């Protein structure tokens, strides 16, 4: 059984048919890069995987939890899926440590001691153990994004979703965030990322998915299909971005 199993998934925004039948199996330890032009449906697909977007048709199962429409199921699903956003979305009134501690405290009802230990562990993992008491606006963009990764990891998710997590960063801050993601991949975390970092997708990912007009247009080993695209659309895309 795959960790994430998506079959026949359709999504509409009003009359706009955004996802036109997606089938995707994600195995434990996969590092998947979703690429494609803006409007191709890659972010929407990512957001359906933790229920931020509802699905109109098809099925989504994460680690045995199927996506239905009740909130209880959604929350069970979300405890298995961590998400990191383009705009970090840290809670501005909480310190880095409190940002990481919040969900384990209020969702998992762990003790203060336990959540503090988790927060320290996760901030250490992203190289920010000295920023426990810093507020988000006292941190650089790269540091904020690393806190956001630590915050998602604190729920011990089975799979992490990354939605263009380096797109809002100054160029010199991109690498510190990618290094953390690379380390997670090396530790065996299952990752699905929408990204424009082609080199990173090729070097770290084990599967690349090219989305086009709401469908998976081409997919496979990134080293192979980026070097030798089988469709003119992917060839055009790689020529434009690489």
């Amino acid at each position, binding site marked *: 059984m795959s960790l994430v199993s998506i079959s026949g998934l359709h999504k509409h925004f009003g009359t706009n048919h955004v996802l036109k039948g997606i089938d995707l199996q994600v195995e434990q330890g996969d590092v998947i890069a979703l690429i494609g032009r803006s409007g191709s449906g890659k972010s929407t697909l990512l957001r359906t995987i933790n229920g931020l977007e509802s699905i109109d048709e098809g099925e989504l199962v994460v680690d045995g939890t199927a996506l239905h429409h009740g909130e209880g199921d959604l929350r069970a699903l979300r405890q298995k899926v961590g*998400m990191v956003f383009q705009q970090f*979305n840290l809670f501005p009134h909480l310190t880095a440590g409190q940002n990481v501690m*919040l969900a384990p405290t209020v969702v998992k009802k762990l003790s203060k001691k336990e959540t503090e230990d988790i927060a320290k562990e996760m901030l250490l993992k992203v190289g920010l153990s000295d920023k426990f008491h810093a507020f988000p606006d006292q941190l650089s963009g790269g540091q904020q994004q690393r806190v956001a990764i630590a915050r998602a990891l604190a729920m011990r998710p089975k799979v992490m979703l990354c939605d263009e997590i380096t797109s809002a960063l100054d160029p010199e801050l991109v690498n510190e965030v990618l290094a953390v993601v690379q380390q997670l991949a090396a530790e065996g975390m299952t990752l699905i990322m929408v990204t424009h970092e082609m080199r990173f997708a090729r070097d770290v990912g084990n599967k690349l998915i090219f989305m086009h007009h709401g469908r998976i247009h081409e997919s496979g080993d990134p080293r192979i299909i980026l070097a030798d695209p089988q469709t003119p659309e992917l060839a055009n895309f790689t020529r434009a971005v690489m």
Partner: protein
Amino acid sequence: MAYQFDFAPVLAHTDLLLQGAAATLGLTAAGAVLGIALGVLGAICRAWRIQPFSAAFGVYVEAIRNTPFLVQLFFIFFGLPALGVKLSGWEASILAMVINLGAYSTEIIRAGIEATPHGQMEAAASLALNRAQTFVYVVLRPALARVWPALVSQVIIVMLGSAVCSQIAAEELTFAANFIQSRNFRAFETFFLATALYFAMALLVRQLLMRLGQRFIVGRPR
């Protein structure tokens, strides 16, 4: 011919003035705490359209914002006894202030909640927080921080407006001043001092609330 200013007959009643000022502050404190609590409740119902409460708060807010405070106060004090609800001057004053501030703060806090960036809600959802947890831990404090200066101003307005509570024999500062000037006919001196007291209290309360807000709502000292 020229008027001879004489503050001595007023200062002889300093204790009454100070008691009145303390009563005004007490009314304000009770009105502010309960009124803002009511406002938080109203704001969440309005902002997240929790029916039927959202509609009920909508009617309440419009009813209060479009009628005079004095009439609201009279309605509570003179009108409600017809329904068997007899309140003392103090009780009626506090109730009127809470209801009045509750309506205005519903709208002020609602603005703060609606200004919450969408990403904050998504981050909370992705961490598996439910709606109530999201409101309490993620939305509320930044929302209050955004509108705190406006909320403090509204509390001051309500404090100054509490002068009309003297009309139902709540013995606050204006009641005290009225009492004193009716005894010594030193209206100018009495109301000059009462005015100065209101002014000082308004400055003081504003400073105090802004500091408290910085400390407990924004969450760190400036």
